[in-house]
């Protein structure tokens, strides 16, 4: 039985719909992420699950029990859902230990202390329980917020942009750490973020949200390599669209040459009837274009950005179209220089032109 079932849930602020007939399920121990730019409805979806908002339609079932539908609206405090907030929301008037033990009010003092110690151990802050939140760094505070949410062993943990107040380096480290902690606790969780690196680092499955809908609910690998819509292709990772013409079910011709793959091309959902001479926009990722001095195809370097291990070159093709290419950084070319490139595409992703 799934731990969470969201079934055609809608919500509006006034007349403005924010969440539209959204459905997904989450298995026990699974970590999902709602990824999207601001205003896509991802935080509202989280608040609907937590019980801070009431859906205008649809139902939410938690651990097999309906917590929200047309007749039911279980208040947040009765849902057994843990929550981690962007600004940590630790209680400043309580010590770390009291913060973590806050959700364990029903337990005996002894049981509470044991659980608090266990949690402090889990987040690597054993022995710091007597301190106060303001004495600790942002990363430590967010780990305490995580421990506080996990301590009552909730059915589900919700994380609302939990790393966005932290600097980049810490964000990366903490997101991996949080994933470890959640997996260790076997906790099902939903993360909300606009940062795809964070989403990919933490989640097993990611839902790309746009205008209150989920465009694709899939693994990070599939989102990158098999985007279902043009928006997903655009939003996830880098890349450009190049016009192409269908030759066969497995091959498309673009300016850079013939793209042929062993597998039938991914043509977006609307393009299952792709036929010869059908015009497509083909997605080319920076790693699909290889720098090769022996190649006949030449492109001019118009911009470059140093990434340490590699350069990300923006290249202009003879037609004027631009593509991106990831090249090992010892190939240092000047802007204006012409370099040889070739395609190395393992499967074609295209969307019919004009859609």
């Amino acid at each position, binding site marked *: 039985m799934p731990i969470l079932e969201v079934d055609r849930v809608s919500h509006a602020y006034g007349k403005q719909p924010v969440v539209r007939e959204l459905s997904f399920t989450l298995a026990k121990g699974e970590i999902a992420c709602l990824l999207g730019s601001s205003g896509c409805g991802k935080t509202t979806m989280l608040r609907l699950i*937590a*019980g*801070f908002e009431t859906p205008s339609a649809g139902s939410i079932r938690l651990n097999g029990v309906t917590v929200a539908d047309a007749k039911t609206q279980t*208040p*947040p*405090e*009765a849902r*057994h*859902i*843990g*929550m981690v*907030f962007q*600004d940590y*929301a*630790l*209680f*400043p*008037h309580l010590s770390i230990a009291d913060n973590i033990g*806050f*959700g364990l*009010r029903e337990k005996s003092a002894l049981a509470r202390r044991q659980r608090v110690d266990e949690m402090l151990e889990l987040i690597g802050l054993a022995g710091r329980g007597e301190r106060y939140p303001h004495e600790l760094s942002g990363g430590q505070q967010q780990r305490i*917020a995580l421990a*506080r*949410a996990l301590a*009552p062993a909730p059915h589900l943990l*919700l994380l609302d942009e939990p790393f966005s107040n932290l600097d980049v380096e810490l964000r990366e480290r903490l997101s991996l750490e949080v994933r470890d902690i959640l997996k260790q606790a076997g906790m099902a969780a939903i993360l909300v973020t606009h940062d795809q690196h964070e989403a990919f680092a933490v989640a097993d499955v990611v839902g790309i949200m746009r205008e209150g809908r989920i465009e694709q609910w899939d693994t990070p690998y599939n989102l990158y390599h098999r985007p279902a819509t043009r928006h997903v292709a655009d939003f996830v990772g880098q890349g450009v669209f190049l016009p192409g013409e269908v030759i066969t079910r497995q091959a498309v011709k673009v300016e850079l040459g013939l793209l042929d793959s062993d597998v039938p091309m991914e043509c977006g959902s609307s393009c299952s009837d792709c036929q010869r001479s059908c015009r497509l926009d083909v997605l080319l990722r920076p790693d699909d274009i290889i720098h090769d001095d022996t190649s006949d195809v030449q492109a001019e370097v118009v911009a470059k950005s140093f990434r340490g291990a590699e350069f990300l070159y923006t290249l202009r093709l003879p037609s004027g179209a631009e593509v991106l290419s990831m090249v090992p950084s010892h190939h240092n070319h000047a802007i204006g220089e012409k370099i040889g490139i070739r395609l190395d595409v393992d499967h074609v992703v295209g969307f019919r032109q004009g859609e």
Partner: protein
Amino acid sequence: MGDFDFSVWQPSLPFIRDGLLFTLRLTLIAMSGGIVLGTLLALARLSPNRWLANAASLYVNTMRSIPLVLVILWFFLVIPYLTGKPVGAETSAMITFTAFEAAFYCEIMRAGIQGIPRGQVAAAQALGLSSTQTMVHVVLPQAVRNMLPVLLTQTIVLFQDTSLVWAIGAKDLLKAADVAGKNYNRPVEMIVLSALIYFAICFSLSIAVRQIQKRGQQ
């Protein structure tokens, strides 16, 4: 000038002490009663129940729009009607000050409650607390802590304002000084003494407030 006789301070001290004790007792009762009643009023003003909110704000705004000395006189005349028997000036003063100060403490507590980030409430509810428990364990403790300097400043004002009970003849510090001054025919010396006592207490309290403020900013 030059013919002050401060030797009258010595014999009048027991009398002054009794007056001061009443002033302090009145301040403490009006403060604690006022903060409790004021907090309840603040919760009523913030309540989603419109009737409750309107009733509370009517009470608060009325109290804040009438001079204290009028309220003192008015209560002194009205309370005996309500209770059916005469109450002393001292009891009347305590009821009046509690009711009056509650309106001011209410506004301080209301600002304090509204100043608590909404995330704090959401965090407490996600951890299983009802709205009432959230108020008691999360919002109010922080509101009081954040507002402590303002609450104490209001209490200093309250302490000074207690001298207005002079109007209904309650035996507070000022009244004691006044009576002693008349007894010894040295009114100026006794007024100076009471002023010094008011000053010493208010000044040390305001230093305490500054200390608390400084600690709060760290």
